[in-house]
């Protein structure tokens, strides 16, 4: 294992023309990764988590894929019909891009390595600025030391990008690790929709350690969608930090389908009056899959609002963990925060853990949270059967509807259809 991540973080030389600040930051991150202890289940942030699920040393930085593999991936990298542009990455290397008219609007839409060359100040201002809040400091350090490419999307003041932009991150081979990155900056009054599709070329064991950060300026509106469709053997660690300015709005929807152990951390910082964040997730867990979800709704300013809806459908011996905190800073009066987790348990062996939390230090706030765990409703089942739909199909359709309610929160129709198809495909075996 000469290329072990622990021994030789790979990416110190990964970027051509890497500026000094970045080289230093990445060297520091590599040292941090070595120095930091492995997460322990006694940490609150890793409570209930199955830490034996993987060891980073089992994976080596992904090697480039063969041309015929790329050829097979591209027809599967389509996404929403209406999209305004795509970047396609395979094993952390850009393999295809569609030219986009958004450049005419002044939008910067580049793979990260090109953004570093062409817009180093912009990248420096926003790149990896969020602190690790959930005990993932080690993984974030690994990501920062190892990231080689990703999406850089900058939408200037007042620019409205109508159709969604998207990126595909493919992983191919086995024992490989990739570090997908998304950095999205929407300046004041702008709007954009961006989709990350995470997909596996084959059903093999790999590691994905991604960071997806959104900066939503004053009065800007960002829809960010991620479709996590890694192989069923992939270890996936995804961290998201969203910062919303005054009057801005972020909608973050994740569809979690793949992975053996998939941890996602999502933080919304509401900084400025009227800032709003919607945090949405739909998860299908089956077999021995484990989904570990940690969230923070961080209300830093008065008159901010957040709305979290996470839904999990669990089959077989699958496990989901949800730990979510609503934090209201002392002066963040008139905060309106909502958090709801719903687990649909379809097997006696499945386990859904819900740990909602509140930390309120301001006055006149409206905060509500709730976690429910239930089975298929017998009357819904009978109604479907009374129409000739078999019990098995009825179970699948009701489960689809349960999760589709999350997808329906998206306004963009052609994107919604693609997500619904992905969900249907995922449920097809049940």
């Amino acid at each position, binding site marked *: 294992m000469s290329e072990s991540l622990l021994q030789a973080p790979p990416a110190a030389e990964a970027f051509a023309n890497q500026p000094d600040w970045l080289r230093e930051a990445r060297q520091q991150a590599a040292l941090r990764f070595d120095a930091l202890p492995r997460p322990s289940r006694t940490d609150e942030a890793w409570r209930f988590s199955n830490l034996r699920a993987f060891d980073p040393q089992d994976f080596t930085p992904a090697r480039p894929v063969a041309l015929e593999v790329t050829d097979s991936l591209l027809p599967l990298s389509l996404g929403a019909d209406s999209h305004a542009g795509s970047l396609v990455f395979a094993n952390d290397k850009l393999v295809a891009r569609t030219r986009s008219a958004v450049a005419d609007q002044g939008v910067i839409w580049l793979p990260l390595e090109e953004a570093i060359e062409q817009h180093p100040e912009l990248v420096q201002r926003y790149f990896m600025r969020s602190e690790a809040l959930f005990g993932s400091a080690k993984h974030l350090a690994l990501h920062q030391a190892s990231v080689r490419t990703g999406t850089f999307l900058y939408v200037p003041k007042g620019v409205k990008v109508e159709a969604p932009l998207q990126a595909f991150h493919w992983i191919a081979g086995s024992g490989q690790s990739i570090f997908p990155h998304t950095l999205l900056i929407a300046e004041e009054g702008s709007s954009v929709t961006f989709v990350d599709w995470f997909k596996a070329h084959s059903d093999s064991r790999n590691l994905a350690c991604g960071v997806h950060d959104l900066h939503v300026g004053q009065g800007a509106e960002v829809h960010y969608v991620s479709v996590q469709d890694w192989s069923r053997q992939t270890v996936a660690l995804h961290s998201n930090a969203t910062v919303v300015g005054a009057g801005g709005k972020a909608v973050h929807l994740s569809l979690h389908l793949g992975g053996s152990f998939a941890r996602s951390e999502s933080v919304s910082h509401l900084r400025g009056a009227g800032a709003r964040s919607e945090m949405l997730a739909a998860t299908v867990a089956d077999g021995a899959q484990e989904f570990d979800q940690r969230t923070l709704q961080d209300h830093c300013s008065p008159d901010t609002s957040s709305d979290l809806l996470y839904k999990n459908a669990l089959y077989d011996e699958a496990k989901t963990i949800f730990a979510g905190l609503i934090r209201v800073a002392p002066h963040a009066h008139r905060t309106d925060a909502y958090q709801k987790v719903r687990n649909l348990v379809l097997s006696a062996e499945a386990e859904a853990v819900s740990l909602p939390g509140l930390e309120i230090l301001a006055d006149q706030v409206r905060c509500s949270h709730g976690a429910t765990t239930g089975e298929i409703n*017998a*009357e819904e089942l009978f*109604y479907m059967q009374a*129409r*000739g739909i078999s019990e098995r*199909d009825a179970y699948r359709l009701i489960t689809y*509807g349960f999760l589709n*309610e999350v997808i329906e929160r998206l306004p963009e129709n052609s994107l919604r259809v693609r997500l619904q198809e992905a969900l249907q495909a995922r449920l097809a075996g049940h």
Partner: protein
Amino acid sequence: MSLVIHNLHARVVGGQQILRGLNLEIEKGSVHAIMGPNGSGKSTLSKVIAGHPDYEVTEGEVLLDGVNVLGMEPDARSRAGLFLAFQYPVEIPGVSNANFIRAALQARLAAGEELEATEYYGDLYKEMDRLEIPRNFTARSVNEGFSGGEKKRNEVLQMAMLKPSYAILDETDSGLDIDALKVVSAGVNALRGPSLGILVITHYQRLLDYITPDVVHVLVAGRIVRSAGPELALELEAKGYDWIRDELSEAALAAEPVHA
């Protein structure tokens, strides 16, 4: 060709006996109505025929064109040609009406056969227009947030699309204002014909002004106690159910069915 209910006894699983030897035959092409006071077993009858798991049949049979359906799962009964229009249609969040009806039609096709989308939407829109249902209905979740009238129209829409041999309408008039009642009744009347037998279950005579039955039955204490032409419904409306109770002997109402 008929739906024959023979000596049907049923109870809530592990609970009270509700149907106590019910006999009824609905020929294809005919419309029968069952009227009865609250608690007489009207809704139980519809659920037992459809196969609701809360009820168990202790005796008797239900023959659909000669085939006993009581051993069949509810979905198999539906595919065999039975339709139940629910008194309280169930809301199914996140599943669109179009998707739901398509799944029900797809379930009737042989394995590997796919429903033709253009044809499906053509049929669906035609029936929706007839029931004065707006087009955006297809994208809405099944019955979710529907008014009482919309729910009942949706039941009739499903009935029109699934083309059953026998349909049971359970209190289809409940929760409807007069305009909705007219639309729903017209929808049902449009489906009347030689290939469909209909059983209308209702507490009130009002519905039968719009869906004229061939035969009216009175259900009391789990048994049909009287059958006659549509004039019986008017008589019940005028005199109430007590009149018919009074005519029956106390013994006949109270008697427990004899089990073999």
